[in-house]
Each structure stands twice: as C-alpha cells, then as structure tokens.
C-alpha cells in the first residue's frame, strides 16, 4: 500500500517533469522559428518559408525540424589539441543547468485530484529562488569549459567575456529580487505567487481593488533592473558579446553539429527560463487578475463561480500566456537594439544597475520598516 503511494508520487513527479520539459523544449525549438519569423515581419520581410513536407509549408514551421536534422548530420569536430572530454561535456553542462532550473518554477496552483493535492511545480523547494539562481550561475561552467577546452585563443577570450558578463549581471539580478523577498518574506516561488493574488485595497482605498498585487506594482524599479540583467544572462543581443556572431568570435567557435546546436538551444532555454522567472516574480505567475480559488471577484462587485479544474486550467493558461508575451518582448528587444560595447556593458552592470538595485533594496527596507512600525 505504501509502496503504491510512493510509486504514485514518483509517477506524478515524473509526469510534471515531463510536462515541463515538453513545454520548455518545444518552446525553445520554436524560438528558432519565432526568431526568424518575428525579425522578418518586423523588418518588412517574409522570413523562412521554403521548407515543405509534401508541399505543406505551414508558415515555415518545418525549418526548426530541418535545422535539427542538419545539425545531427554535420561533422562533430573536436580540435586536435582540445580536451576531448571537457569539449564534449561543456555543451551538455550548459543545457543541463538551464533545463534543471525549471524544476523550481510553479506553473499552476494546487491541483486536487482524487483527494490528492498535486502542487503544479516539479520540485516544491522552499528556497526556490536560490535554487534557480544557483543553476543559472552554474551555467557559466558550460561556457568557460567550452572556451577553455577548445584550445583556441578566440574561444577562450569569448568565454572570459561571457563569464565576466554573467557574473557581473548576476549580482544585479540577485539584488533586484531582494526587495520582493523582503516584501513577501519567503523564498518559495509557489508561496510568492500565491501572495501575489491579493490586491492593494488595504493601502489604496478606491482604485486599490483594481490593481492585482503583482511584483511589478510593488517593485517597478526592481523589475527594470531584473529585466535588463536577465537579458544579459541570456547572452543575446544587445548583450551578445560572448558570441558576437557577426564580427567578434565567441566561446563556441570550435563547436559544430548538434553540440553547437546545444549551445544555441541553451540560449533559447535560458530565454524561456528568464521569461518564466519574470512572470513568476513580477507578473503574478499563474494568477489571473480577480480570480480566486472559488471564482472571479471583480472589483465592481460582480462575482462568477468557477470550478476547481477550470480555476487551475485558467492559472496554467495565464502563466503560459505571460511567458509567451515575455518571449515576444525579449525577441522584440533582441531585434531592436544594437549590441553594447564591452565597456558600456560593464558600466551598465556595475555603475548603473548594481547601485540602482542596492538603493531599491534600501528604500524597500525603509518603507517596510515604516509600515511595520505603523502596524
């Protein structure tokens, strides 16, 4: 009996992990298509539309498929003087740490099925934020090993740039969310999302009922710092100095075939991860505005009862929609802004974002102390 329960628990966890991986990997794969199509439409072009299966083109949706097949059949090159083991390990490390970070992201509320409460989160870690940031930081290892094991000066320089950039921006990234941690007094992301379900009626009588208590309304400055630092973490334009595919050479020069593809995928997976994080921390995660477990309570007084499954489903849909919106925004930023110069990059990280995040923490602490003193 106990064994059956344990197996059921393991099964549920595996299913959750499967759902998350399915969603994330597909979204990351689709990003290659979105990247081409969105940039094309932005620039008054058509974009990739030639790959066809039996004459069906489907807006070029087969291009990611064609790319993957191409990548697998290309020569897998390891430099003669490179470190074979580390050279092979680096892309796997990169993609591994990007993928496991998703375990901490809650994508829905508690689902009650057959008297069992399923937390829609792969791992209900109560220090979820720390876990995700730790995994993000460990991603640096893949990058620096790739540059180091290639025995190529340009690759090494690229990986040094990448490491410097990631470490610099992780500080601003970490500091930007301290304010939220102080406000919600928890590091559990599920708890944090649940706490964002309220509204501002306690502090703002009148319009306060209209505004959901999302992180962006509590910490608008932190949101901008977080967004900038998070974009830098994904190593994409305007922060793509680690690779700089158009002129400077990046840490994966010596990679070809699917190993190069894995680095490419890592960027997209990290983009999705950062979109998930921004959604969870600042946009209420799976919260739908005015939706409570028993149904909608609109600020003008109307209510609409909603079944439990519909409630959870709406939550998951809300989370997915917000993540997709962030992915769109990141893609729009990537195709709008030119690349930073390296000194500008470091200046932005250390002279602007870091102090802004620090001041934000101080101001938040002051306000919290003031409100706490008032009771």
């Amino acid at each position, binding site marked *: 009996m106990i064994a059956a329960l344990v197996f059921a628990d393991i099964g549920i966890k595996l299913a959750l992990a499967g759902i998350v991986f399915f969603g994330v990997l597909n979204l990351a794969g689709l990003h290659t298509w979105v990247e081409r199509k969105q940039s094309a439409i932005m620039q008054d072009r058509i974009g990739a539309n030639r790959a066809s299966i039996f004459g069906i083109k489907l807006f070029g949706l087969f291009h990611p498929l064609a790319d993957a097949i191409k990548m697998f059949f290309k020569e897998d090159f390891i430099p003669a003087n490179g470190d074979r083991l580390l050279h092979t390990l680096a892309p796997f490390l990169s993609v591994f740490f990007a993928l496991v970070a998703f375990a901490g992201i809650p994508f829905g509320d508690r689902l009650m099925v057959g008297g069992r409460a399923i937390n829609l989160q792969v791992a209900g870690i109560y220090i979820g934020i720390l876990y995700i940031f730790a995994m993000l930081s460990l991603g640096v290892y893949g990058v620096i090993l790739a540059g180091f094991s290639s025995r190529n000066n340009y690759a090494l320089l690229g990986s040094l740039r990448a490491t410097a950039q990631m470490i610099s921006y992780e500080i601003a990234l970490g500091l930007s969310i301290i304010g939220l941690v102080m406000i919600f007094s928890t590091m559990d992301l599920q708890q944090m999302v649940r706490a964002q379900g309220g509204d501002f009626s306690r502090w703002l009588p009148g319009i306060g009922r209209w505004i959901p208590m999302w992180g962006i309304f509590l910490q608008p400055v932190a949101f901008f710092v977080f967004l900038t630092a998070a974009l830098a973490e994904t190593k994409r334009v305007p922060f793509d100095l680690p690779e700089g595919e158009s002129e400077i050479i990046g840490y994966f020069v010596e990679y070809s075939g699917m190993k190069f593809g894995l680095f490419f995928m890592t960027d997209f997976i990290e983009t999705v991860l950062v979109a998930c994080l921004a959604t969870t921390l600042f946009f209420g995660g799976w919260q739908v505005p005015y939706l409570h477990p028993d149904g909608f309570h609109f600020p003008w007084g109307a209510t609409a009862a909603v079944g439990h499954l519909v409630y959870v489903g709406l939550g998951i849909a809300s989370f997915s929609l917000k993540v997709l919106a962030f992915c769109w925004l990141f893609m*729009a930023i990537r195709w709008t802004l030119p690349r930073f110069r390296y000194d500008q990059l470091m200046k932005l990280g250390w002279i602007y974002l870091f102090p802004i995040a620090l001041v934000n923490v101080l101001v938040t602490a002051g306000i919290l102390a003031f409100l706490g003193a008032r009771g």
Partner: protein
Amino acid sequence: MQRKRELTFLENLYVPEIVRGLVLTSRHFFGNLFIHTAHLVGLMKNRSAAVTFQYPEQKRPLAPRLRTRHRLTVREEGTPRCVGCMLCETVCPAKCITIVAGEHPDPNVEKYPVRFDIDLGVCVYCGYCVEVCPEDAIRMDTEILDIAAYSRQAMKLDIHELMDPKLRKPVPECTLKFPHQCRVHKPVLPEAPQQRSDLPAVVSRNEPPGPMVGSWEAVYGKKD
C-alpha cells in the same frame, strides 16, 4: 557633416529611447502581422506585408529600358529580319557576336544570317548591337535575367534560341524552315577536348559549324 551631438537628459536615460525603438519595430511587426493575417483570409491583397519579392515565383517589375537577353526579331514568314550587314558584329566591344551571312532569294533583302551566335559568357550587355542595327533585327527586351550554365559552351546562344526566347538548352528540335547552319540536327555540344591538367585551358571561341538545314522552298513555297 553631422557631428556628434550631446545627448539630452531623456536620451541619456536610455529607457525612453529603448521604448521608442521598441514602439517603432512593434508598429511594423503588428502592422505587417495584420496584413499577413488579412492575406490568409483573402483580404487586402493589394497591400503587401513585405518589401521583398519571393523571387522565382514573383518577379520584380523591370524598367522598360532595361537591357536583358537578346532576341532576333522575325518576319511574318518566319525568317529573321537580320540582313547580315555585320554592323552589330563589328560594333560589339566584347566581340561576342558571330554571323555567317548567306544569300537571300529576295533581291531586295540580299543577305540573311545562315548562322547567328552570341556568347553570353562574353557579352557585356552594352546594347550597342541594338543601337547600331538598321533593321531593328536585334533587341534586348526578353526580360530574361536568370542566365546561368554549367559550362562555357552552354552560355552560347545560336539562331534557334535567339529567334525564340522561350527555347531553353538543350533545344529539342529545329523548327526553322530557311537554310541555316543547324546545331540541333547535330549534337549541340561538341565533346570537350581532352585537356591536360598541367597546361592552361584552351577555350575555343567558335564551335565548328553545323550542317546546313532547311530550304527556301519550305518558306516561300515552290516557285512556278
């Protein structure tokens, strides 16, 4: 010359300028997306969502004065208007035209081309041949731009292709009735000569003439 300007305070803040840029690209994105979607349901077909041309299917409009591949204009009875005066061959700066003149049965015409070749691999598309022609016999208005071949031989056009711009190599059969040196009745491409790799390539400009084919009786009917 635009010298570097001091940035204003708002521009120095980065964020408003970034938002301005995002608004611009997003306006293009959503506008084009709307037109693309309208195209899917068959609306707004007169407005294009892209400035690009889907080339092989959709050709760019060409300027009327654009010089494209040559053609030889044709008389009503199907003979070339060319009178074999050699002006084009003479004026051609690239020397890509080869004409062999023959005697025309009509005494008013005197001559006609038994053979008229243009080597497109040599032609510079200057249009002098068109300018110089007293008979309006050669024009460069076929709107054929996609001229490419795997060999130099295949870049050479003979009278069949010049008189009918729709023909493509290899020309399937000869439809010319008047007497001409026909490459269709013989193998079109002569075997490439064995080339020793340690010697510079020898490229013969002129292929050996083909056999004479056709008769004036086929064009004008039997004389009484």
